């Protein structure tokens, strides 16, 4: 005979304001098999837990139903309390009176009746619970970091410094990400390369980090602690072991007019190229789409000049399989292409450029060696206009959210311009100045007050060319919506920060969720900002939302700690909520008839065939067997099984039917 305890929680007023908790407890107390029933203000508090523990000990309870909040919140708390009192933790069930009842209904008779029903079905269910034990799985203590921007770099270094192995993959020929393109960084104006390159070198030299550039994730299988990843190492067309990075090939390559991605199209590169001087690794790749040899079958100049014979035209992509225990996604962001604003004339007027292009102009390693010169004729612009929110905060045509970084980098750009072009005039058109952050507001004030940048609060409706000037037509909303026109020499658009192209596919490969803007979704907006909904996969940097460098780095260190915590144990425990194929005494062995429909149904390839042999080693029967390491407890196989031979532990067919019957008052 079961001896079940029912513990009804008020959750302060969260439940008791709409549900008559005393009546729920009293009614439950009258059910068959219920030995103890009580209501209490905070069941999760120490006294509340003690109430449960004492009842288990004193009444010799065989099952517990806690009627409180969602099991997502407190299931571990109550299971642990049961375990401490000597009851198997899986003999504890939770009825969700809060999210499923009190929060969604008005106070009233029917609400209390529903609460009673929720308790009742779990009382019946728990009668069929069995003691279960957690499953132990080993942990592969190697992390995969995807994306080698500042976030990926920081996460890799932090994990590697805890003594664990890291595999870092970067799709481009060099690590560094957007930060490597930046000139100086807000709010301190320190040179981006100067603070970044030491980290890049550290990654390359760290004994615990294996770096694969020009590499992307092909596919992923497995689960926390036990992932298997396939990585595509795109062909660089060189033998990296032989290449010394002398750079001779890049100086001799005849294809010299390819717009450089690193310089945002403002400079040119060759077909065999190293994206920038401080690249890590500092070895070239051949861009096959633009290489004369791959297009026309002739050239091979690089092969001729290479002193070490490192060029490999026939090199193919390599698919590599690695085992890893955790993943950090750090694939960053991109900026929206500004062509969707025909009224701003990007693409039509060469001197309308993006913020990233301005970074390259202001950067000592850029096409103008750090001088602000306009692309059309190389002149130094005497008047420059910066447009904030180009696409941001624009639900009609762009994106509804604030890109967050632009207000700050615009202030930086205007400041850099004023420092470099003495006597120049700069204007910023903005909607609001969003400068929340340590020393950020002060930074913007410095731009306005010390450097004399003219901030105009209003939007720009059109940019057009007239007499060699770019006429920026806008409005000043602080001057009673007065139209303003500025005849500028150059215009910089702060284009919205958006998710990478292909972020969706990557999310699908990784089985993590993404938000409506295709940024990767965190597991909880406040309490789990670096976790994804998939255990063992973490987020760092601007792949989750537009983020500046300090935030990206903080997130990366946070993700690294999560990985280190995971790797601090040799084994992981998993809930035993997995499928099992029933086994019986000979001569039946199992009701499974070996049709193996379940094998094809299982989305996790967790079902294998097992041969049952007699003492002489002859096969008597072939039946299905679930690999507890792979099974995710989704239940698909249960639905497929014709002979009802598979059950999910903790959610057996018997338990489910019992719940339904209880709800129909058949007990």
């Amino acid at each position, binding site marked *: 005979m079961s001896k079940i305890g029912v513990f009804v929680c008020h959750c302060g007023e969260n439940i008791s304001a709409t549900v008559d908790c005393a009546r729920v407890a009293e009614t439950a107390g009258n059910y068959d098999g219920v030995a103890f029933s009580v209501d209490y203000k905070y069941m999760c508090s120490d006294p509340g837990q003690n109430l449960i523990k004492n009842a288990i000990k004193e009444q010799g309870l065989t099952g517990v139903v806690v009627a409180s909040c969602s099991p997502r919140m407190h299931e571990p708390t109550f299971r642990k309390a049961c375990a401490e009192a000597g009851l198997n933790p899986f003999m504890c069930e939770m009825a969700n009176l809060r999210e499923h009842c009190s929060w969604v209904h008005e106070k009233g008779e029917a609400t209390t009746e529903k609460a009673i029903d929720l308790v009742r079905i779990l009382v019946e269910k728990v009668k069929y619970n069995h003691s279960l034990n957690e499953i132990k799985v080993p942990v592969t203590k190697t992390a995969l970091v995807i994306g080698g921007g500042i976030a990926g770099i920081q996460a890799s270094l932090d994990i590697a410094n805890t003594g664990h192995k890291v595999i870092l993959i970067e799709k481009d020929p060099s690590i560094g990400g957007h930060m490597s393109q930046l000139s100086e960084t807000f709010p301190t104006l320190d040179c981006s390369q100067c603070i970044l390159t030491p980290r890049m070198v550290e990654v390359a030299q760290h004994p615990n980090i294996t770096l694969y550039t020009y590499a992307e994730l092909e596919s992923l299988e497995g689960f926390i602690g036990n992932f298997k990843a396939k990585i595509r190492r795109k062909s660089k067309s060189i033998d990296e072991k032989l290449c010394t990075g002398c750079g001779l090939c890049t100086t001799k390559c005849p294809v010299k007019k390819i717009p450089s991605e690193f310089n945002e199209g403002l400079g040119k590169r060759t077909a065999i190229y190293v994206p920038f001087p401080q690249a890590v690794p500092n070895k070239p790749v051949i861009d096959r789409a633009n290489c004369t040899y791959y297009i026309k079958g002739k050239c091979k100049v690089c092969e001729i000049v290479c002193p070490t014979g490192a060029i490999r035209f026939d090199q193919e992509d390599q698919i590599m399989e690695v085992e890893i225990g955790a993943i950090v996604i750090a694939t960053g962001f991109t900026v929206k292409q500004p062509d969707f604003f*025909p009224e701003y004339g990007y693409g039509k007027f060469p001197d309308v450029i993006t913020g990233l292009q301005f970074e390259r102009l202001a950067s000592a390693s850029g096409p103008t060696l750090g001088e602000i010169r306009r692309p059309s004729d190389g002149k130094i612009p005497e008047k420059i206009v910066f447009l904030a929110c180009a696409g941001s905060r624009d639900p009609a045509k762009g994106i509804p959210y604030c890109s967050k970084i632009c207000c700050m980098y615009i202030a930086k750009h205007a400041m850099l311009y004023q420092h470099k072009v003495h006597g120049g005039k700069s204007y910023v058109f903005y909607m609001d100045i969003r400068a929340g952050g340590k020393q950020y507001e002060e930074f913007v004030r410095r731009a306005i007050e010390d450097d004399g940048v003219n901030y105009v609060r209003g939007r720009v409706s*059109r940019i057009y060319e007239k007499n060699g000037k770019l006429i920026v037509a806008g409005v000043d909303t602080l001057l009673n919506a007065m139209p303003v026109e500025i005849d500028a020499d150059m215009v910089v658009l702060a284009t919205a920060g958006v998710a990478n192209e292909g972020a969706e596919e990557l999310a699908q490969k990784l089985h993590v969720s993404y938000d409506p803007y295709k940024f990767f979704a965190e597991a909880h907006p406040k309490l789990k900002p670096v976790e994804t909904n998939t255990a063992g996969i973490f987020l760092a940097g601007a792949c989750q939302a537009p983020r500046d460098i300090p935030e990206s780095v903080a997130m990366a260190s946070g993700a690294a700690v999560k990985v280190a915590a995971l790797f601090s144990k040799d084994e992981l425990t998993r809930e035993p909520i997995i499928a099992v194929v029933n086994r019986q005494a000979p001569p039946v062995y199992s009701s499974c008839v070996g049709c193996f429909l379940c094998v094809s149904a299982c989305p996790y390839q967790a079902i294998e065939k097992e041969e049952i042999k007699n003492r002489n080693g002859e096969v008597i029967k072939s039946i299905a067997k679930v690999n507890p390491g792979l099974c995710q407890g989704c239940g698909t196989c249960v639905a497929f099984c014709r002979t009802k031979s598979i059950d999910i532990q903790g959610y057996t067919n018997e338990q489910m039917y019992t719940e339904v019957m209880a709800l129909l008052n058949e007990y």
Partner: protein
Amino acid sequence: MTLGFYPGCSLKGSSREYAESVLALAKAFDINLEEINDWNCCGATAAHNMNKELSLALPTRILSLAEKQGLKEIVVPCAACYSRLTVTKHELAEDSALCSAVTESNGLEYTGSVSVLNVVQFLDKYITPNLEGKVVKPFDHKVACYYGCLLVRPHEILKFDREEDPQSLDTLMLKSGATPIDWAFKTECCGAGLSVSRTSSVGRLSGKIIGDAKDRGAETVIVACPMCHSNLDMRRDAINSYLGEKIDIPVLYITQAIGLAIGLDRKELGLQRHFVKVTV
């Protein structure tokens, strides 16, 4: 073939030449434009600034009458009328309660079955496919196509052309042998109704339009709206005094320009009615 025709007030008054050229063009292509019987004012700017239901009831009555007359498509050359009719159709389709209230007050059946075509859509659908071969005097001029505020806005409702850098008039003019120029004032406001109450503002706003067209070498400005036409043409004195120079670039309705290209008579196209002499 017969299509419905809603002239609206302007085409019966200050911009008779627009009506004349639309009808002449239709005739040249064997299209019968049948005027909606007993039509009323679309409400223009006044109605929707004062009373929403009235501003919807007026266009709805026009659409109901067109339905009653058995018309499937109606051509609405005035950009403002076109906007009012299209916005009304959209609002009634979105809100059935509003739709019943409005139709009830009109006392006429309304099903929303009539399609509304602006002049560009009309030309695109019925004239340009048969234009080739008919062009006897290519309109070989540099033209600045001016769309004004209403022809392509609001995009969510009209779903026609690009709102910030429209191309449809340019494409039509290209087919008639013209060279459309790229310029900055395609959709800037001409001053609209301030024409009467603050003519000097129209001088300034329309002045920028005409000034830019001239600076970029346009020989003609092409329009598809009676209001735009009257501001750019009739208010040329105000424009010239704002600009401090005398600009005599003529302003043609697109239908007049195409009419000239296919060799229609200048009088039939109403060119003599313009304030700025049409020299092209």
